[in-house]
């Protein structure tokens, strides 16, 4: 469903991604983890069609993003880590805007929007201007909008930022349900417990290169002497002996 082939991205003289290859099939929850500045957000933006790679090919449901970006984007639901929205619209108006842009049929919009707002506990605030929403409410509204057009691929950057524990549990269950319905979920996260909890496969990116990829059990077994959890795998793979764990380069 998501295919990345030899993706290279450079910012001036700095190379953020070095020939990234990745394939995520339909119905899989893929966790994408890595240290700060490793290239996670760059990869997410390239998959979402927000940014063009310097070289390489992105295919969404078999559609080449460079050749037919409109068709590819129609199949994606995108949830960024920072919820910037049109502050002068109400929550419901933003969903109407999204429905029009993604050409959701007016016949199904009303019921669908209401169901999503209720699912994300926003139904009572749907007629309020977004400028009065909290960070978590905006994040939930973006999730509603991302699901409104029944995407085949859900691309999520830090899904749990700003959500309360009840919403986190709801989102985790939702992702499982979506995957069970054949929807691909590609999510980048720093919350390793969430990745451990719900991801079918995990990819670890470091300095623009995919250094490990596989199911959690396989990753743990691949470590010399085994690793008790994802945190141990992550630290083992991304931190060289004597390296400062927070000294990363910005993207």
């Amino acid at each position, binding site marked *: 469903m998501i295919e990345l082939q030899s993706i290279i991205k450079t910012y001036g003289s700095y190379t953020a991604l070095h020939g990234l290859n990745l394939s995520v099939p339909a119905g899989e929850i893929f966790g994408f983890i890595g240290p700060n500045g490793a290239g996670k957000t760059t990869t997410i933006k390239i998959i979402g069609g927000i940014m063009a790679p310097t070289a390489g090919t992105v295919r969404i449901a078999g559609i080449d993003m460079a050749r037919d970006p409109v068709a590819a*984007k129609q199949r994606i639901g*995108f949830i960024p880590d920072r919820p*910037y929205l049109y502050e002068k619209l109400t929550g419901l108006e933003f969903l109407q805007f999204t429905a029009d842009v993604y050409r959701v049929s007016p016949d199904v919009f009303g019921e669908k929007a209401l169901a999503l707002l209720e699912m994300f506990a926003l139904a009572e605030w749907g*007629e309020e201007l977004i400028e009065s929403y909290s960070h978590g409410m905006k994040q939930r509204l973006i999730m509603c909008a991302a699901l409104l057009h029944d995407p085949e691929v859900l691309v999520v950057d830090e899904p749990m930022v700003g959500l309360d524990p009840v919403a986190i549990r709801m989102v985790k269950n939702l992702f499982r349900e979506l995957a069970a319905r054949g929807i691909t979920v590609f999510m980048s996260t720093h919350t390793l417990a969430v990745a451990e909890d719900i991801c079918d496969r995990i990819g670890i990116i470091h300095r623009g290169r995919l250094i490990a990829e596989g199911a959690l059990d396989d990753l743990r077994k691949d470590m010399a002497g085994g690793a008790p959890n994802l945190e141990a795998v992550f630290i083992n793979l991304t931190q060289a002996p004597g390296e400062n764990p927070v000294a990363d380069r910005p993207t």
Partner: protein
Amino acid sequence: MSGVLDLVKPRLWPLLHRRPNGSARQYARLAVMATVAGVLWIGVFLVSLRVLTHFSTIEQIGTLLNFKLLNMLLVTALALLVFSDILTALSKLYLARDLPLVHALPVPAYRIFLARWIEISFDGSWMVVAFTLPVFLAYGVVFEQGLLFGLVLPAVLVPFALLAAAFSCLLVLLAVIVIPATRMKNIFILLGLLAFVAVYMTIRMARPEQLVDPEVFDSVMTYVASLQTPSSPWLPSTWAYSALHVALEGDPAGGLLDIALLWSGTGVLLFVCIGLADMLYFRGYSRTQAAGHKFRRRPLSKTRRRSLFKGPIRALLEKELKTFWRDQTQWSQVFLIAALVVIYVYNFKVLPLEKSPMPTFYLQNLLAFLNMGLALFVLTAITARFAFPAVCSEREAFWIIKIAPISMRAFLWIKFSIYFLPLLILTEGLIVVTNTLLKVAPFMMGLSVLTVFAMVPGIVAMGIGFGALNPNFRTENPAQAVTGFDGLLFMVLCTAFIGAVLALEAGPVYRFLFAQLSNRPLSTRWFLRAWACGLLAAILCAAAAVIPMAMGRRRLEGRGI
């Protein structure tokens, strides 16, 4: 004091450490901006010099008139400084994005206030000071004053600006306790613009063109000289005026008391502000943050309004209109434009065509031709204010457009369509009404309507296209986008475009009118020339509509968020 300076450093460092990256494009931008600013500055100086020199030659009242103007200038500058500082203070003290971080620091509120006052003093007054300075220098030249006057100027202008900033901060500190900062900013912008519109309309309706009449001029000047401008001993503008007055008369030391009043007044006001800030600033800031969170639980409406449009066009159209009308700062701009349009039409209504020595038919049509250029300049200004920031106004929510299944070409052309129709109606309306007032011939009316119809798409497309070249999506005020290099480029190219099309039309139109006036038939050569000019003008209009949009699309496609 070091704690206060630490808080100002984040503002200073980028300025001190920023170096041009060496690209030819950046140097070219800097050179163009510096040239335009320099030309404007020198222009203000030369015009002031000319006016003051002329006034000084008027017997008996010349010098008095110049001093009256100086007093008026200082009173106006004080009003502008206070207005500008109030808006800057509301932003800097209560609405800036970095405030949550700053208030989390272990620093007392009065120090944060003091650091912000330094920024407010600079941001709120640099433009007023920079562009009144050439007028004051012109005074120095006309009154033949030298270096000492040059020393008196900063000694007067610096405390004058600092005092205005301290006074504005004092007002804002007190007012925010009653009205939240967000609402107050909108109220101030609206009141300020309404005041400007009222003053502008009053001056226009007073028919200042009568001053051109030498008989009227003398009596008006005598009247101005006898005017009582506000000169209360409590007004800082009076202190500044007194200090500059004696300096211009060659006695700089005579103004020391007034200069001391300006500096000590600033000190006293700042002292009061610091005391008040310690008590009130944090309360006001806290209140501002809480003001936006008024929730009213309401049931969802399940019905969707009917619309002529569907899909992305409807989405962007409705979003644009709702965002526009829910932003009160836009209303004041609409009032301003309405006032400009009324004045524009009024100007044509009161034109004394009958007093002209030229034949009325010729003059009417000549004015109708010039009217096309003027109306298109009005359109350029309105486009600069509304259509140019259209892409930038997406702000940080631009990611929504980037991920959406619509092409950048479609996005830009939808934006174009949203602004095109109202701007076309406005410009055509202006042309038809003013030409009717001028009683022009049907040929000129037709030509004007057609020319405007052909040129409006080009001007609007240039606004949208150039606005998409380098939009700053992180800006707090997208309307300021036009003040950058691309805005300047837009204005210059629009002027060139209007000039070129009208120049192409001018020759054939002149010959046509001349033939009509002298009852001569038009030659075949005229027809060939008219067709060639018309074709060239049409090509120019098409290029203006297509090329900037393509440039903007390419930039946006290659740009991340």
